[in-house]
């Protein structure tokens, strides 16, 4: 690995995380279905999807805690789970459930975790304790939720990993505490430029943190795109229909649509002017507006569209 590479965003470099056709079943249920995903070094990826979509299963396979039934996983070029031990120093992982004993003091929890990592840095711990404003003498069970989340993050960062994998790191945190946690995470990213892979339900957090976003639905990846590209390519069209005639044919790329009285809402992916020309040419339209969408709107309409498709 070249040490002079700071951006880590060179697309010609090998990706930090690569999943190819990964499948995992639990009994008859397929939790992750033919998932292929490639995350460039130094970039931040937001993994979104409803509860039970398979995000945690995918993450547990990525960190070597669960073996896939099919497919290949590489993290930093290392095969997972086959070479899991070699991967350990590379990855900082914050699981979806706290993994720290409540009766321990913060410093004891740190010493406990230290034993598992050969590349652990005490200097980094001191730095992070200061950065995160954590009291080493406090008992873990007496920490606020935000402080406990920051302790988990500290434990994941102390061996100076190149990639951070966080499973729902901010769920259950109130808004102020979430800001505190975000601040710690962003400080760490700004210092070291790690690759970040995180799952979240909160689209606002994804928009804050992610360079690219992937939507998992029933084990399948619906899309993976840079956030800015996704927002510029997805538009909501509001059409006011003529009284006598209902909605007619739609162009390719419709994600979701709904008619309420004279109002016809269409969410278009891969937006282009030709889709608008198509709608105008083939329908009796009084008025047509094209509107930008937030990430949350895109997420909801995409899932509504999937549900509508499945319902038929």
């Amino acid at each position, binding site marked *: 690995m070249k040490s002079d590479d700071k951006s880590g965003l060179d697309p010609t470099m090998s990706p930090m995380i690569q999943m190819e056709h990964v499948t995992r079943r639990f009994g008859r249920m397929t939790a992750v279905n033919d998932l292929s995903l490639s995350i460039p070094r130094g*970039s931040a990826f937001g993994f979104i999807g409803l509860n039970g979509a398979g995000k945690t299963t995918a993450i547990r396979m990525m960190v070597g805690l669960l073996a896939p039934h099919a497919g290949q996983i590489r993290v930093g070029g290392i095969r997972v789970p086959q070479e899991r031990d070699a991967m350990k120093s590379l990855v900082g992982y914050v699981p979806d459930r706290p993994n720290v004993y409540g009766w321990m003091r913060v410093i004891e929890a740190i010493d406990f975790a230290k034993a598992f990592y050969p590349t652990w840095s005490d200097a980094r711990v001191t730095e992070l304790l200061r950065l995160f404003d954590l009291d080493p003498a406090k008992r873990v069970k007496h920490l606020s939720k935000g402080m406990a989340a920051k302790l988990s993050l500290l434990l994941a960062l102390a061996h100076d990993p190149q990639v951070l994998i966080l499973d729902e790191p901010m769920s259950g945190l109130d808004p102020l505490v979430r800001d505190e946690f975000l601040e710690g995470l962003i400080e760490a990213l700004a210092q070291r430029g790690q690759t970040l892979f995180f799952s979240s339900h909160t*689209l606002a957090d994804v928009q804050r943190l992610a360079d690219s976003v992937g939507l998992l639905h029933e084990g399948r990846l619906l899309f993976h795109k840079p956030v800015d590209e996704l927002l510029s390519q997805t538009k909501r069209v509001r059409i006011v229909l003529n009284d006598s005639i209902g909605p007619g044919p739609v162009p390719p790329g419709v994600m979701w649509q709904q008619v309420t009285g004279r109002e016809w809402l269409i969410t278009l992916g891969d937006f282009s002017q030709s889709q608008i020309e198509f709608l105008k040419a083939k329908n009796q339209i009084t008025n047509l507006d094209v509107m930008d969408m937030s990430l949350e709107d895109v997420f909801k309409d995409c899932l509504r569209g999937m549900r509508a498709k499945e319902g038929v």
Partner: protein
Amino acid sequence: MRIEPNSVVPIFQQIVDGIRAAVAAGVYKPGDAIPSVRAQAVASLVNPNTVQRAYEQLERDGLITGRKGLGMIVQTNGRAIALSGTATALSATFAQAIQLGQEAGFSRPAIDKIYRQSWADAPESSGRSKT
């Protein structure tokens, strides 16, 4: 700078617009350093990569320039560039408003009348020259 993460405006664009507005308003004068990528990322709680990309855009626009050891500095003509950027954004907003009126069937005089009325309704801003 306030970042609205649920907005339809991408965060990258919000940072570009925010710095441009701050330079136009004189918060950062030519020769001043704008906040470092790290400071800006932590202050607005956004990914440092996004701030970096926004700064690169502002550098391409000629508003700021990187100086060794000093960070990003507002260019000598930075304010003019910021103002022209704001003028472009303003013009786009007006175009959008005109389209809104036209689609609803308003004539040009009708739209002009509403525009003039909007001036009367706008809050009086002190300390600004009326040119």
